[in-house]
């Protein structure tokens, strides 16, 4: 009974040391990004680079300028930019979250249906793939404005766009995950005379979860992008998409505002991604090598 029951710790590195290395990684990474940006800027201005773009204060403002922009008021005596960006992010975040949830649900259900029917899989899958080759920029106004004329809140249309980008990776990966169990594992269920539903819930779905989470990580950021793109044509005030359109018009005079907005978008995407990672940690109980 003296079998290897407990994983030995890797190479004698303690968990504390690993945690320390990880927390150090973030400032180091940020510093590297800052160095790259400022280094390129410095070289570009010195060397009068014009390709792929002219390097100047408008095209590449100082990192510190962008940083300061967060604290500058938009109108005299108004609240600082970060106040607006915070509310824009919440606004867009809600739309993206609704779209993400909707898309994940649709993608999952679609995969379950397709997993059980070869005919449907052969017939439907190509159209699902085609749905993603359609440029989202062309569809977004049709959906958001189109739904708007029917009296639907434009935010709902934006969520639909986010869902449109979310469902595809979830459907494709879940489908693969549902088919991932070993033939022996399926035979085992057959030996217990388990029916389709029991095989689905006790074997196929749990086996698919690592695949589902891989997809959710992709979809998490895609849903944010979808929401931002969805907002731009609807002239929907209050979201990050609106902010991007707005600050674009003032780019030549206040480029840092747009850059600050881009950073806010990135942060929102990162928050979505980390939320999925956290959920995965809580839900998935797998051999370490099976966790992506």
């Amino acid at each position, binding site marked *: 009974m003296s079998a290897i*029951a407990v994983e030995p710790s890797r190479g004698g590195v303690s968990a504390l040391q690993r945690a320390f290395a990880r927390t150090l990684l973030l400032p180091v990474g940020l510093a590297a990004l800052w160095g790259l940006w400022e280094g390129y800027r410095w070289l570009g201005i010195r060397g009068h680079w014009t390709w792929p773009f002219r390097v100047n204060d408008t095209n590449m403002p100082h990192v510190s300028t962008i940083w300061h922009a967060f604290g500058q008021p938009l109108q005299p005596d108004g609240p600082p930019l970060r106040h607006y960006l915070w509310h824009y992010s919440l606004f867009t975040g809600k739309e993206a979250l609704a779209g993400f949830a909707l898309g994940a649900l649709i993608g999952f259900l679609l995969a379950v249906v397709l997993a059980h029917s070869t005919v449907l899989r052969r017939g439907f899958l190509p159209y699902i793939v085609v749905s993603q080759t359609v440029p989202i920029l062309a569809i977004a106004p049709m959906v958001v404005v189109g739904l708007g004329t029917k009296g639907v809140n434009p935010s709902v249309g934006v969520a639909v766009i986010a869902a449109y980008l979310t469902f595809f990776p979830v459907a494709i990966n879940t489908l693969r995950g549902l088919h991932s169990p070993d033939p022996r594992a399926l035979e*085992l269920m057959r030996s217990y*005379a388990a029916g389709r539903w029991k095989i689905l819930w006790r074997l196929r779905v749990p*086996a698919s979860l690592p695949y589902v989470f891989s997809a959710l990580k992709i979809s998490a950021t895609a849903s944010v992008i979808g929401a931002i793109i969805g907002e731009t044509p609807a002239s929907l005030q209050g979201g990050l998409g609106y902010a991007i359109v707005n600050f674009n018009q003032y780019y030549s005079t206040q480029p840092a505002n747009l850059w600050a907005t881009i950073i806010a978008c990135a942060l929102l995407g990162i928050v979505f991604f980390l939320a999925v990672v956290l959920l995965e940690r809580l839900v998935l*109980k797998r*051999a370490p090598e099976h966790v992506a």
Partner: protein
Amino acid sequence: MKAVSLKGVSKQFNAGVTALDGIDLDVEPGEFVSLIGPSGCGKSTLLRIIGDLTKPTAGTVQVNGKPAERARRDHEYGIVFQDAVLYDWRTVAKNISLPLELLRWNRGRRNARVKEMMELVELTGFESHHPWQLSGGMQQRVSIARALSFSPTLLLMDEPFGALDEMTRERLNTELLRIWQETSSTVVFVTHSIAEAVFLSTRVVVMSARPGRVAGVVDVDLPQPRTSTTREEPRFFELVTQVREGLAAAGAPLGETQEPALVEDLQ
């Protein structure tokens, strides 16, 4: 009533390959029968036919007096594969109780049985471990506990110790015999190890390949309980020789019975 009754069982695969040809075999309740033969003799296929995991092309299969499909639906047998086939996302205890959940046992009854099974396979204390935290031998013990959890009268085993090292294998052989006697179940055991077949069985069925046929049956009269010293008795060696000669007569090149089982799996 026979535990297993096969009459004229044949199996042809789509490519026209005859895997099994006219197999007649009866297994009495409480017997431990091993199927041994070279790769491609269809011994794994025969086990799957008994378990109604694949249908024979011809012939009849009865388990405990019922047609094979009825027997499977009535949970008459438990099965153990070469790989433990444990579900990664379930703890050891939850893996063992999987068939009990499917049989809609209530929680209290499940827990009591899991505890019993953990004692039977001597894994008490590992209930909340996950499969990947266990050694191969321990995983296979969990798989045996799972197969026996709902007290089937028949245990089907498809080279269950084939992937384990020799020492673990011999220890698990002894344990399996103890479990077999404690649960008074019937075992049909597929193996390609002559020594393992002789040590475990009350009867060894020697099969020939292409097409798979029963080439001979060796009754193993070694006394019970069998221990590690059983392997050193002259009678043990005589029986091993008898099985080996049976295999040779059946056309299996000597020393080549240990091919990987994959060939059969692919068919």
